[in-house]
């Protein structure tokens, strides 16, 4: 069940697969806990997307390209 539970957790499960997995989860405490913890972990990983490079870092990265880029590139 790990694969179907992963797909439900990240929202990619569809149709019959989604229905079957959710039906199973409704009657299986072990899979329900697994799904809940997986969703929690994925949700926390989403928060890591908030990390943005600092303005100085952006400038350093762009400068590295600009200094070596052809004119008009």
């Amino acid at each position, binding site marked *: *069940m*790990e*694969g*179907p*539970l*992963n797909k439900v957790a*990240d929202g*990619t499960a569809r149709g019959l697969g989604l229905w079957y997995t959710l039906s199973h989860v409704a009657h299986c405490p*072990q*899979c329900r*806990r*697994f799904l*809940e*913890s*997986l969703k*929690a*972990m*994925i949700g*926390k*990983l*989403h*928060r*890591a*997307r*908030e*990390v*943005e*490079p*600092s*303005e100085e*870092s*952006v400038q*350093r*990265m*762009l*400068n*590295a*390209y600009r200094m*070596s*880029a*052809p004119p008009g*590139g």
Partner: protein
Amino acid sequence: MSTFGGAASRPDFETAVLGELGLLYRVARRLAMNSTDAEDLVGQTLFSAARSWEGFDGRHTRSWLVTILKNQHLKSIRRKASRPKTVSIDDGGELSQGSLDAEIDRRAFVDDILRELDELPEDFRIAVALCDVEQMSYEDVAAALDIPIGTVRSRLFRGRRLLRERLKAWPSDYTAVDGADGKGKE
């Protein structure tokens, strides 16, 4: 998914890549393992992308850039023959005084979970970083890494499993894992 409608609506190179710079930097951090090398890697990626820009069809810009980033990383590994294992906690931006405490807590949390992610083998680490952190579709990740979608799923699910194992050791509530393991493979 980043695509352009056609040549007429195609932005210039810098406009196109600026919107993806955060993603490129975060993925580079997962690959290079420190901020200095990550910046270098993104700089090399931008240079290489700029040289290919005229021949690029403008479809799936994000996947295209991640592919270049991955290839630049492989080149870098070959050049260095080894990579640093340390992870620095940095990249601080300007913080307003009022939100300082909350920002410190948030960064500590994010740094902690990313530190655990960085301990995974690279194939699994990048699958989790692209799918779960950057929230790219399986299809885009498959295109970016030049692997089948089934392989993306396999690496992602195994990466999540490994990460959960690491997080289970934490005393905090980073995960709600409470012995609910024992799931068999599909």
